[in-house]
């Protein structure tokens, strides 16, 4: 509670609850929290604590791979669907001739992924996930975040090699490619959508099971084997993860002379993202190597803040990579379904709520119970 008194009128105190203080003066509100010992954020976390993330994979029945990630109040669902791109070219009489040009490509170069747009990530924020995002065309923030995810996926942490997407005929010539449509739908937004979306993309890609694809010479088309035991996972490279931070300044108003000038907050929530203008994202790749750093806004002393961010990002990388979903390929039974499209589906509901009788509450594959 804060009290201020005016000197003009008879001593009349103004006191209002914390939520009002938060709306009237958000940066002071944040500063006062950080000046406490030990410094705490309004959400109760310490500046270096990341939110605990929960992951569920393979909850969607029409996607080849899927993941739901919840970190605090930020929740995203990522679904990966594979479609087939047949390499035919030409118009009129020349239509149907297969042309594959792979000039100067060696193992490890993923020119095909880029030139043919074989991996298509998208981010959807217009789902009513937050009061600022309405259905409609994507906002600037949504478009830039989607582009950042695409750069991460194709360049910074190139998880998907072209070799795993090729569909070849019996002689080994490439006839078609799998195209992975990766759609991230944000259900709830409380800051730091990039980290959560990226983790969901990695988990979803690891859980993908594509049907075995065969090039049918007579039909000149790709046909797939519906037997679920012949579905295969993607051969991915080693995964990397991102960690985002914001830097909060103390303008000298709070805490006196000895106060900390800058505070680096890990995994910011919506309130902290709005108050603090300086944002840093660190991408950590295989083996804990730093593969990317982005910094925008702010006047902080980079020599001091970046090492903090890097060491915290490495810890976060350890947390992500020791999560069982990321360690092993998703185990579980494949279940043949009554449709030609037979993706893997793990029903996890063990207790049910009957519609016409009160009984044990049901469990859900997507939600925490």
């Amino acid at each position, binding site marked *: 509670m804060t009290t201020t008194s005016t000197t003009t009128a008879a001593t009349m105190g103004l006191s209002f609850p914390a939520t009002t203080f938060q709306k009237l003066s958000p940066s002071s509100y944040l500063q006062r929290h950080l000046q406490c010992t030990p410094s705490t954020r309004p959400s109760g976390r310490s500046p270096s604590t990341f939110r605990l993330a929960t992951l569920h994979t393979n*909850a*969607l*029945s*029409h*996607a080849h791979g899927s993941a739901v990630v919840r970190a605090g109040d930020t929740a995203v669902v990522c*679904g990966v*669907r594979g*479609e*087939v*791109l*047949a390499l*035919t070219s030409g118009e009129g009489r020349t239509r149907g001739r297969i042309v594959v040009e792979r000039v100067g490509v060696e193992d490890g170069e993923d020119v095909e992924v880029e030139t043919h*747009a074989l991996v*298509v*990530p*998208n981010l959807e924020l217009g*789902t*009513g*996930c*937050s*009061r600022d995002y*309405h*259905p409609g065309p*994507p906002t600037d923030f949504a*478009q830039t975040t*989607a582009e950042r995810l695409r750069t991460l996926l194709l360049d910074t942490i190139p998880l998907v090699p072209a070799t795993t997407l090729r569909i070849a005929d019996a002689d080994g010539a490439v006839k078609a490619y799998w*195209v992975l449509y990766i759609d991230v*739908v944000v259900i*709830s*937004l*409380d800051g730091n959508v990039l980290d959560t979306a990226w983790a969901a993309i990695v988990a979803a890609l690891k859980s993908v099971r*594509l*049907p075995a694809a065969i090039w049918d010479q007579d039909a000149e*088309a*790709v*046909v*797939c*084997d*519906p037997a679920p035991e012949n579905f295969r996972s993607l051969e991915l490279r080693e995964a990397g993860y991102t960690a985002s931070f914001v830097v909060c300044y103390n303008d000298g108003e709070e805490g006196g002379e000895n106060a900390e000038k800058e505070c680096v907050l890990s995994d910011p929530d919506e309130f902290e993202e709005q108050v603090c203008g300086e944002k840093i994202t660190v991408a950590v790749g295989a083996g804990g190597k730093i593969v990317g750093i982005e910094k925008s806004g702010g006047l902080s002393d980079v020599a001091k803040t970046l090492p903090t961010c890097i060491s915290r990002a490495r810890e976060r990388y350890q947390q992500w990579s020791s999560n069982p979903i990321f360690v092993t390929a998703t185990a579980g039974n494949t*279940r*043949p*379904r*009554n*449709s*030609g*499209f*037979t993706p893997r*589906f793990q*029903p996890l509901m063990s207790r*049910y*709520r*009957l*519609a*016409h009788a*009160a009984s044990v509450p*049901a*469990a859900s*594959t*997507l*939600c925490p119970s």
Partner: protein
Amino acid sequence: MAMADRRRINGPTGATVPPVFLEQTLALTAPRRAPDELRKIFLKTSLTPPATGSAFLELSAPSTLKLTASVYGPRPLPPSAGFSPHARLSAELKFAPFSTAGNRRGYVRDALERDLSTQLQVALARSVKTATYPKSGIDVFVTVLDCEGSIDDYNTLGIMQALAGAITCASAAIADAGIECVDLVSAGIAAAVGEQGSLVMDPSPLDGYDVKAAALVGYMAGRDEITLLWTKGELNIEGGDFESVVDKAVEVATQIRTVLNEAVKERVLAVGGVNS
């Protein structure tokens, strides 16, 4: 994909096709439910904290319907909207790109989503006490994460299923938001199947029924009022077929209402005014 959406990351310029399988396996794997047995529902509120109210609905396996609803409001209308003595309820329903079988849906809103959004708005509009919130807007957003069956083929129940789930879930979200309502709306579907036209409650597209006619009702059980009625197929009004299918659908909606009550009980009691 006809047009490239220039605000999104698009796929390759050549068209991609969903995988074509060698043979279609159509065997039913789950035992069919009894005609008067409903599927079990998981319904939970307050899962989207940034929203004023929210709810998540999921049907038990082998059904795969999953959807989430979030409600914002009552919040002020923009000045351009003009004076309104009642709250304006708007509803938007969206299918996620990975939610349907067959072709991947694009992000651009198409006619089906617009139609279902209007139906959803009609189903919910009369249940809210709009007169208590003048000059305000109440926004309901429903995202369908997983559909049952295909929604491209207009002969299937898939579209009705999605709408029925959306109505029930949105009603739970409105109650979770603490908005004053006359009653909660639950939605139920019944169908006349096969040669005899025998009635089935809560049919699923995965059951493989030969559906002759189906009815969806949005029903306020406390007041015995229907807010939305949507029927498909030929139904004989003189012979009483129409009434019997609609009555069956109302029965389904009444049973689903008990699930809805459980889900919002905590919130309703907290907001106050319930003597139970």
